[in-house]
């Protein structure tokens, strides 16, 4: 479904990805871990075509993202939901307007149907009570839940999560992890999760990859990954946040 083949990328002259290769299957939750600055978020941005590889290919459902034109990219993006680190909600729109925004901008649905669908997604993340509130009065966890609802409103087949637990207390982080699992189970989406939180990775991941020096240095199912004797994995597990 998502395939990276020998992807190289440099940003402002600094190499970020150096021959990155991996594949994510349909319905799988693939977790990318690694220290800060190793290119985790850059990897996600390649999947939606915000970054294009200097070398190598990124394909989504067999379509080359790097070579896609504007229309091709639009089609790929319509299949993908993206949860940003800080939520990235539009601060002059209410919670409900934020969630309804993609439907309002990209479809010809009548207003009642847009409202119904937006409320349905807000209920999925337990935020329907906050529908008339503004994003700036919400806590970090609430903003992420609203952002998740907005990502899901177009019913994507792929969900990308960029540090879904960053800046959250352990209780809220656990709740977000539960939502990631619930989203996968109810909607059957394929997910790529970028995180440096071990609890998140081991809770939601079907497979976990360790990114270091711009490429994957270890990959496996959670028990396999935890039991790895690779010193880089052991070092990361020793310093990673729970």
């Amino acid at each position, binding site marked *: 479904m998502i395939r990276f083949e020998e992807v190289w990328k440099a940003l402002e002259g600094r190499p970020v990805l150096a021959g990155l290769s991996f594949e994510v299957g349909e319905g799988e939750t693939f977790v990318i871990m690694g220290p800060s600055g190793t290119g985790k978020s850059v990897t996600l941005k390649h999947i*939606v075509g*915000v970054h294009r590889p200097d070398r190598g290919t990124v394909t989504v459902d067999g379509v080359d993202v790097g070579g896609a034109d504007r229309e091709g990219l*639009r089609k790929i*993006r*319509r299949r*993908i939901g*993206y949860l*940003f*680190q*800080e939520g*990235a*909600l*539009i*601060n002059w729109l209410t919670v409900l307007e934020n969630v309804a*925004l*993609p439907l309002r*901008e*990209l479809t010809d649905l009548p207003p009642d149907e847009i409202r119904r669908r937006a409320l349905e997604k807000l209920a999925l993340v337990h935020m329907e009570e906050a529908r008339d509130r503004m994003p700036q009065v919400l806590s970090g966890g609430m903003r992420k839940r609203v*952002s998740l609802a*907005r990502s899901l409103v*177009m019913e994507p087949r792929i969900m990308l999560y960029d540090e879904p637990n960053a800046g959250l207390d352990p209780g809220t982080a656990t709740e977000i992890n539960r939502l990631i699992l619930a989203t996968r189970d109810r909607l059957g989406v394929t997910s790529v999760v970028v995180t440096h939180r071990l609890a998140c990775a081991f809770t939601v991941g079907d497979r976990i990859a360790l990114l270091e020096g711009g490429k994957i240095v270890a990959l496996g199912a959670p028990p396999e990954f935890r039991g790895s004797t690779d010193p880089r994995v052991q070092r990361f597990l020793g310093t990673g946040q729970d």
Partner: protein
Amino acid sequence: MNTTESSIRFFERRGQGLREFAEATGYALSLLLGGLARLGQAKRRAASVIEQMANGSVRVLHVVLLVGCFSGMILSLQTGLELARWSQQDLIGTIVSLAMVREMGPFITATILAATTGSALAAELATMSVSEELLALEVLSIDTTAFLVMPRVLALAIIAPLLTIFVDAIGIAGGSLVARFQLDVSFANFYDRAIESLKETAVHLPVPKDLYVGLFKAVIFGLTIAAIACAAGMRARGGAKGVGDATRRSVRNSVILIIVFNYYITSLFYR
């Protein structure tokens, strides 16, 4: 560091500044054309356009009126004192009205709009840029030019001439007060001269040329301020400092272009 090296670095810095200005202006032009190409969506986005118009006019109305009034008063006093030396103070009405309508009204309004509405607009979009809101819109396949740029461009193109009319009127009124109470020119004399001199330019159209050229300038300045502010905001990177830089760039580039365009429009219509 020897003199040659410091000279090279001096020119490098100037060159970098010029390149940055050219890039920002090119991007602003592409946003402006994109915004104008999407004017067909104005009806659908009427609420957003009206909100931008209210933000850009109501909040700065008192400032433009105050500055406009005092500008007219200064103009009247400065020219009046000189004219009085030659007993020609009756011409104050002509000079104040023509100067306000042709040049000072549009220019004062545009400068204030660049410093207030334009900078606020740049800061708002820059904050969206550094907090990944623009990226989120892009990933959602939402057309940011239609959603963000078009309503702002249209709103400023409408409010700039409207505010200019207010500034023209209050500037002339301020000038008439100074003429009456400090230079002993009657209101009747001042306004007769003002109206007469404006009427003289209504040759090709029923509207005085000085007025429609001034308002045309205001529309161009409004479009310029909106496009430059959107471009500065949407190109912002790097947290709070990026927001500050975008705001500063927006005001600086707008004021430079307003002056340059002012010259060329004047040259186009009056040479």
